[in-house]
């Protein structure tokens, strides 16, 4: 996993609420290999492109100031619905490394961390304000520093954010969970030995 330490990049305000992962990547594209040369076009595919493949000019990611955006600022319940990790793959294929919202679908939230994408939960007011500032200066950058847990909005205001210490550690170091878990091999084995006796009916 690619470590995440800090990021300064164009941020795109995404005003929708309850953006489900079916929107982020339609299910008919889930079977495509990640190596597909067009993977970046899968992100928000049906919102972003017409049937003939031409761009929908109204869609915010198709607008000039936001083409290089790598930070997405959304409304509440972003990434709800299906557990598809490809939603994160599609964001990454477009260079996104951070998503900011007032709440996230739980599974999406975890999937982000497991791929080195930082999801940041802020209050509803902060999310609204960050988006308003971005609308006021299209194409503006934001800065995210993971170690001190700060983000700087388009207007220069600095905010503090919370992040799970374990997740933070994994992101900073680029650690994947399996490697870490294997350090607990003895604990897992001890648990299994005891558990198999206590719950014998689970092991016919």
């Amino acid at each position: 996993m690619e470590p995440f330490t800090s990021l300064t990049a164009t941020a795109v305000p995404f005003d929708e609420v309850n953006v489900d992962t079916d929107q982020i990547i339609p299910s008919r594209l889930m079977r495509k290999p990640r190596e597909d040369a067009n993977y970046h076009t899968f992100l928000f595919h049906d919102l972003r492109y017409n049937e003939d493949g031409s761009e929908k000019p109204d869609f915010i990611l198709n607008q000039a100031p936001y083409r290089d955006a790598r930070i997405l600022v959304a409304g509440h319940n972003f990434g709800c619905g299906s557990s598809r990790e490809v939603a994160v793959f599609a964001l990454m294929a477009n260079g996104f490394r951070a998503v900011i919202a007032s709440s996230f679908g739980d599974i999406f939230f975890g999937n982000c961390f497991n791929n080195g994408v930082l999801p940041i939960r802020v209050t509803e007011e902060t999310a609204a304000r960050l988006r308003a500032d971005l609308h006021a200066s299209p194409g503006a950058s934001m800065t995210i520093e993971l170690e001190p847990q700060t983000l700087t909005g388009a207007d220069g205001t600095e905010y503090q954010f919370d992040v799970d210490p374990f997740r933070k550690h994994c992101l900073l170091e680029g650690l994947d969970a399996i490697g870490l878990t294997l350090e607990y091999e003895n604990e897992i084995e001890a648990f299994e030995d005891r558990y198999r006796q206590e719950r014998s009916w689970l092991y016919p």
Partner: protein
Amino acid sequence: MAQPRTMFDKIWESHVIVDRDDGQTLLYVDRHLCHDGSFFAFDMLRDTGLPVRRPDQTFTVPDHYVPTRGHELDDAVDEERREMIVKLDRNAKQFDLTIFGLGDKRQGIVHVVGPEQGITQPGMLMVCGDSHTSTHGALGAIAFGIGASEVSHVLATQSIWQRKPKTMRITLTGARPFGVLAKDVILAIIARIGAGAALGHAVEYAGPIFAAMSAEERLTVCNMSIEAGARCGMIAPDETTFAYVKGRPYAPAGEAWQKAVAYWKTLPSDPGATFDKEVGIAADDIAPMVTWGTSPEDALPITGQVPDPADEADAARRAAKEKAIDYMGLVPGMKLTDIRIDKAFIGSCTNGRIEDLRIAAAVVKGRRVAVPAMVVPGSGLVKEQAEKEGLDRVFTDAGFEWLESGCSMCVGMNGDTIDPGERSASTSNRNFVGRQGPGARTHLMSPAMAAAAALSGRLCDVRELSLAPSEGD
């Protein structure tokens, strides 16, 4: 005396392998389910070079990509979908996992198959790379959906890292009104609390209405927990649960059964146990429900009208409503019963079990469909049982297509889709934009309501239809 504990806490605590100071917990996974969409996870596992730690605790079944018109590999609509099914087969073989493949009567939707086979049991911690894993909590288990990286982690280590979610109890009071099915109950709950209301929470459904429900009805309720954002949904195991599990192929038997039941009886939340959040809902106001918009929270009693966004004070919510109504091709204020449909779909992990088909068949019997309609049983065994009872004839005589088990039009990944701009009455769980195909418009409802809609060609109140003779609108 020990602190009273919730059912969630009891099951959680009994699966803790490691509790880290930073709030992360490594939990043991009793049973892991995989489906034909899990291929990324197997690729990730191969990259690590590790084996599956406990092949006997992992069960696999193809469902998302399987053909429903014919049930052979050759019936898959194209090479790519066929490859998805073949890949699962190959992965199951390579890692020595149980598979209920195409051609096996036990094949079906992963969340129908788990309970049906007795793989799902009270007190378990179960995961699957699918958000509707919340279904299995209906039998008194902690069950939640995970992403592909986590699936590979579970395959390699039989464990998963989690932060303990908060707990929420949703108590339904009063009596269940006439004509209200489990699907109406859960749609009404989500409409009331909102699609994000249970984010970060483990939900327990409580009260006499859930206690009086059949196990299959409870599966329908817990299935849609994720549509309220919940990490998982659960219902306390009781005699109904035990009777449901007993005798199933993977359920304990003999002495082991006695031991298991004795333990399962200790699981319900203790009197006085506290939840982080309590929600009370009066059941008396619940009526047969339909969704009008593009989030499961956009649900109303069938007697209602398409809402007017102008009534919404909050600007973001108003915009969301406007967009949803526009996408759905509706007019604010129009009666829900005036909405004409193009297709009806009865099936999915929400409503593809035998009781669902019985209810739908009771509505359909002796009548004719007004629009193309299909029934997709949740598993091969559900299909077989329905055929034994003659339900297939009831459906086909009425003009329904009687198809092979799988996810089908719930998500359209196997090619069963709705055309752009078309409108469906669907017993599935998501009315998201494009869920059933690009531009498809989905109205969620119970199997009785979907059957009624198929017969009348519009959304209609099944309570009226079941009283009146066939009218052929």
